[in-house]
């Protein structure tokens, strides 16, 4: 059996920017002294005149991007999720969101899979912060194929987009030849009847693995990849919930404000359903190797399997 290819979605971001940069000379990349880590360094190498390092000043970078977009360019600003969505939140809201400027926010190092750097750098609130801003598109891709497609879709979309990427190399499960990305459209990975599991980001692959264990126990789970948290695929969420009658959400994010909350917001109005939210349970992260943390916080396949099994029983 061949080794499964693993790629960190931050690398996908860097690669996609280079590809887009070849076709579109209005694309400008801004970074805040993290070009090596956010992988915009690849773009810098290819297009040095279009890579602007703002220094360690995320609020300023965000404001500069607003001015760049107001002059007709398409800026991608890059930093860790903690700083892009957290430190610069108000700049994103008031200088980008309110005037609905065409700025793309490439936020890497999201979630606990940042690993050893610990809680100060493990942003678990960014999806919640960003999806509260009117008109903001929020995308959390699951693997390399999806992440590269998401960056291209973000460029083509006119308006602000928040893209969430990870530091950890994760399995590439999508097939590039057949994969299609559409903003706001969930992807049914497996149909089922007993329970629907909506997963996002690196939790999608873990959920695919968990499904195999559930199937062995006779539980027929429907698995849906929600790469776009906003606008959420309401139709698909409601349809699947009505079909299975039980819903689980899985995300590497706080259970407050993220995918689970977004799904519940829709279901409570359109199809009240019992929902189990799997994520980080209102605590800060901690230092440790990424895979160990994912396991410790119950976001690995086995953790997901156990929780879903207990929930479905």
């Amino acid at each position, binding site marked *: 059996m061949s080794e499964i290819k693993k790629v960190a979605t931050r690398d996908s971001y860097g690669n996609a920017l280079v590809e887009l940069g070849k076709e579109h000379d209005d694309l*400008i990349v801004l970074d805040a002294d993290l070009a090596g880590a956010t992988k915009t360094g690849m773009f810098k190498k290819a297009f040095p*005149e*279009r890579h*602007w390092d*703002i*220094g360690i*000043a995320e*609020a*300023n*970078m*965000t*404001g*500069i*991007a*607003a*001015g*760049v*977009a*107001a*002059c*007709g*360019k398409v*800026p991608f600003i890059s930093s860790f999720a903690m700083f892009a969505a957290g430190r610069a939140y*108000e*700049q994103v809201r*008031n*200088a980008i969101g*309110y*005037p*609905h400027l065409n700025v793309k926010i490439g936020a890497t190092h999201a979630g606990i899979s940042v690993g050893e750097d610990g809680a100060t750098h493990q942003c678990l609130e960014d999806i919640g912060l960003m999806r509260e801003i009117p008109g903001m598109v929020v995308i959390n891709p699951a693997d390399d194929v999806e992440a590269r497609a998401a960056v291209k879709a973000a460029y083509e979309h006119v308006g602000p987009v928040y893209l969430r990427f990870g530091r950890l190399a994760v399995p590439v499960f999508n097939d590039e030849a057949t994969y299609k990305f559409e903003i706001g459209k969930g992807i049914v990975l497996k149909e089922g009847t007993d329970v629907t599991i909506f997963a996002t980001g690196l939790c999608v692959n873990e959920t695919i693995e968990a499904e195999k264990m559930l199937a062995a126990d006779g539980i027929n789970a429907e698995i849906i990849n929600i790469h776009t948290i906003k606008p959420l695929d309401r139709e698909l969420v409601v349809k699947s919930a009505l079909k299975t009658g039980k819903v689980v959400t899985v995300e590497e994010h706080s259970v407050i404000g993220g995918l689970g909350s977004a799904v519940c917001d829709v279901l409570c109005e359109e199809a009240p359903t019992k929902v189990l939210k799997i994520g980080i349970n209102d605590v800060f992260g901690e230092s440790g190797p990424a895979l160990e943390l994912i396991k410790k916080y119950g976001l690995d396949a086995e953790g997901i399997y156990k929780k879903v099994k207990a929930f479905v029983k």
Partner: protein
Amino acid sequence: MTNLELEKTANEIRKSIVTAVHSAKSGHPGGSLSSADIFTYLYFEEMNIDPKNPKMEDRDRFVLSKGHVAPGLYSTLAERGYFPKEDLVTLRHTGSYLQGHPDMKHIPGVDMSSGSLGQGLSVAVGMAAVGKYDKKDYRVYTLCGDGEIQEGQIWEAAMWAGFKKLDNLVVVVDNNNLQIDGAVDEVCSPYPIDKKFEAFNFHVINIDGNDFDQIRAAFKEARETKGMPTAIIAKTVKGKGVSFMENVCDWHGKAPNDEQYEVAMADLEKVGEALCQK
């Protein structure tokens, strides 16, 4: 325009400011009045703009970093012909396009939405950087408050602007010395403002910001300055032109009542009559 024409225009803008804020029953007259002469010079003399084509591609840009003095900007834009002066009385009213703070999506001539202090300079820096990148010769202007520069983001933006030698950028600091809680040098002193901008690699010009000779000379000097952005530190009188508002902190963010409105307009009428005698 001659200085006398500019003074007359600024006085009309001051009347509009008082009228708009009175109609809104809220808003920020003090800083709008202190910066009215700067607004007037920018929109009637300095900037390459076209009120009939507000989004003209290579126009000069203006970012009102101290967004709360929107009545000053709106009154100037209306005086310049971007939209009808009669609309100014809808300021801050439900359903009006004249929002409490500048809204670029709905107000002709507003180049950037603003209002949250400390952010406008970064936006202006981004616009100036694109101008340089595209080798265009448009210029970018921004107006900050002397209280506003207590915000750290101003200095992040200043550092990058100076470092990148953005000589198409002019920052005007409306130094009226008053902020909501009192005198700026009693709340958290920003002084020396000139030395700070100099340290961030700006060309700095100190002027009386209510004197058109000095305003004209400063913008000319800024235009001639190459290799660094310019900061104009404009010493102004908060509430300028309205007797009971001048240098009174309380008029930062308060509307005149009907009686006060009559006094304010009478003050400005007197200024106008005096200008006609010149």
